[in-house]
């Protein structure tokens, strides 16, 4: 097997190329491959039930990664792998990962298309900035989502102790330590002290701060996970790879984080779908990833809840589920904000699509993942329930397709001007850390609506 050390050597020996030439190479390659493998987005088939399409997508993605590998920004070199090296690395990748400990332990595992087993579920508000004084309460609410196998919480807003947090600044280290300890405190307050952290630290970019904070004495559990993010498209740098030796030798969980941009260097939904799969291979080689967190995003709409994006999620997930045992933790990225019907619909559509296509679930990026305090829980809870129901009903892709289209018809036209929704403090009782009655009422009415669309809530 090609080891991380061999990968580092190739970073110094691969074909030298300007970054813009690599971008052009990627586009040229995906354009040829989608034609060669006859891959075409069909707006009528958001959740395609064509096994051949999934298998062609996987073959095309392997060929793509053979051709373009990944690009090392530090050395300006293309790092390539042969088909047999890719196949071997995929075959030797983990097929399960266990978060947390004790009775709060959660397991994620490789699922198959139309798998009857529940998807694993991560409750997350990662990316949504929240000020220091609200941080624990919001994280506690997220850790309280009943079906969560792991959680993540939110991101600490831009200051700590009143000092702006900057990468490499001493306050970054202090904020990272505080962040981990408060997430663990939040899990404890939610009555789930052993609930695993699927992304340990929200406010640190530098490896030094992450390593400093990821200690048991600050609340980190041995299986808590740190993320290594690739740069769109198919690029890495040493600042991201330099966590790997520590992660590997300390036994910390490693998540590969990949957000290809539809409309960007990989082109439309077809090319971005292939690039999404290729990022899984990048994660294995460059990061030693235990599991994978894909969050493809529409470049213009900054979400993945539109028809082409859900098609992309479905096809890449089917391709991986049919051809590998890689752990696919599919992230929903919604346009709408908290306590809007649209947000419930967006997350439900993603949950149906991803679950029947063989993925596990992470919910959610809310309100395009950028507005302070725009985070909520009952929509996340709905996504977890929908995923579990769909699997337990044994829903097929053929059955899922009209359901997803029905959900899309309720919100897709509103994506460009999606409502921002309410702030957490407007929908939660901040003393009890419980949803306010009006918000609960909205959740109940959505449940009734989803039940009318065919979801059997008695299976929960």
């Amino acid at each position: 097997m090609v080891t991380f050390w061999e990968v580092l050597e190739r970073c110094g020996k691969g074909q030298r190329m300007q970054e813009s030439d690599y971008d052009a190479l990627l586009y040229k390659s995906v354009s040829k491959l989608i034609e060669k493998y006859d891959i075409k987005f069909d707006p009528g088939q958001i959740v395609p039930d064509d096994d051949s399409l999934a298998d062609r997508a996987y073959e095309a993605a392997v060929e793509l990664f053979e051709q373009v590998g990944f690009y090392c920004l530090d050395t300006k070199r293309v790092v390539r792998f042969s088909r047999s090296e890719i196949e071997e690395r995929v075959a030797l990748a983990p097929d399960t990962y266990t978060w947390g400990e004790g009775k709060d332990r959660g397991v994620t595992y490789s699922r198959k298309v139309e798998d009857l087993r529940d998807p694993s579920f991560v409750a997350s508000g990662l990316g949504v900035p929240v000020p220091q004084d609200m941080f624990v309460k919001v994280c506690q609410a997220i850790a309280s989502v009943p079906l969560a196998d792991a959680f993540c919480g939110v991101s600490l807003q831009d200051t700590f102790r009143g000092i702006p947090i900057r990468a490499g600044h001493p306050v970054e280290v202090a904020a990272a330590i505080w962040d981990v300890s408060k997430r663990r405190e939040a899990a404890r307050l939610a009555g789930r002290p052993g609930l695993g952290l699927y992304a340990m630290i929200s406010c640190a970019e530098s490896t030094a701060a992450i390593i400093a904070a990821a200690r048991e004495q600050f609340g980190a559990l041995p299986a808590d996970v740190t993320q290594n993010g690739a740069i769109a498209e198919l690029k890495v740098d040493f600042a991201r790879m330099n966590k790997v030796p520590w992660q590997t030798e300390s036994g910390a969980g490693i998540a590969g984080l990949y957000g290809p941009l539809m409309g960007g260097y990989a082109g439309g939904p077809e090319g971005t779908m292939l690039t999404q799969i290729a990022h899984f291979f990048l994660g294995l080689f460059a990061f030693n990833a235990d599991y994978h967190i894909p969050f493809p995003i529409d470049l213009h709409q900054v979400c993945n809840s539109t028809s082409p994006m859900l098609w992309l999620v479905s096809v890449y997930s089917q391709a991986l589920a049919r051809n590998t045992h890689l752990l696919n933790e599919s992230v929903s990225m919604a346009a709408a904000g908290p306590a809007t019907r649209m947000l419930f619909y967006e997350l439900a559509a993603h949950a149906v699509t991803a679950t029947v296509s063989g993925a596990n679930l992470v919910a959610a990026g809310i309100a395009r993942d950028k507005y302070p305090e725009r985070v909520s829980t009952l929509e996340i809870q709905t996504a977890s329930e929908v995923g579990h129901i769909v699997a337990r009903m044994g829903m097929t892709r053929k059955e899922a397709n009209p359901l997803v289209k029905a959900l899309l018809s309720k919100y897709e036209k509103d994506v460009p001007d999606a409502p921002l929704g309410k702030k957490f403090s407007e929908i939660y009782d901040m003393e009890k850390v419980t949803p306010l009655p009006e918000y609960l009422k909205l959740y109940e009415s959505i449940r009734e609506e989803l039940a009318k669309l065919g979801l059997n809530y008695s299976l929960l």
Partner: protein
Amino acid sequence: MDQEYFDRLAQAVVDGEADAAVQLVNDGLGKGVDPIDAVERGLARGIMKVGEDFGAGEVFLPELIMAADVMKKATSILDEKIKASGTPRTTLGKIVIGTVKGDIHDIGKSVVAAVLQANGYDVEDIGIDVAVDGFIQSVKQNNADVLGMSTLLTLPLQVMGEVIAAMKEAGLRDRVKIIVGGCPVTQEFAEEIGADAVGFDAADAVKKVGKLLGRS
């Protein structure tokens, strides 16, 4: 030169054909085409078409960047002739744009740069991971009308405020408009650090820059 010539020039930009565009420009100059006409009736029409199609999701970033590259190569030849003629080509404004220190993500910034160029602005893209001094120097060197700063990450946000403070110290702030953008940038943040506008996407950035410069 007839309309067909200018149409072919526009089409070379749309097709991302740099060699063809350069050839057409040189042929045109040889036959006495007014270089300002070549830009305005030919190249600019092409880049604007690509910009519109990109906004509509009908073409993707690589085509937009290729078209912007063709535009740059062709106009660099024409600009020399225009300068020599003593009649400067008018652009909508000079914009310096970059991703701030601590962030190496380039896509959002590159999209905005290309779309601004597609809408008639003269854009100097100074790349990624740009430190405070880098922005200040480039604004001075290019005599910029607008400074654009971008980041995808939360932590480098602070750098934007530092650049604005340094612009004030350098005595540049009063004559240069500042627009910020990127995933974590909100209206509130932009106001807090003293930016003039926030571009929520490429089209919004074009609209806001136009407004800042009194073009719309």
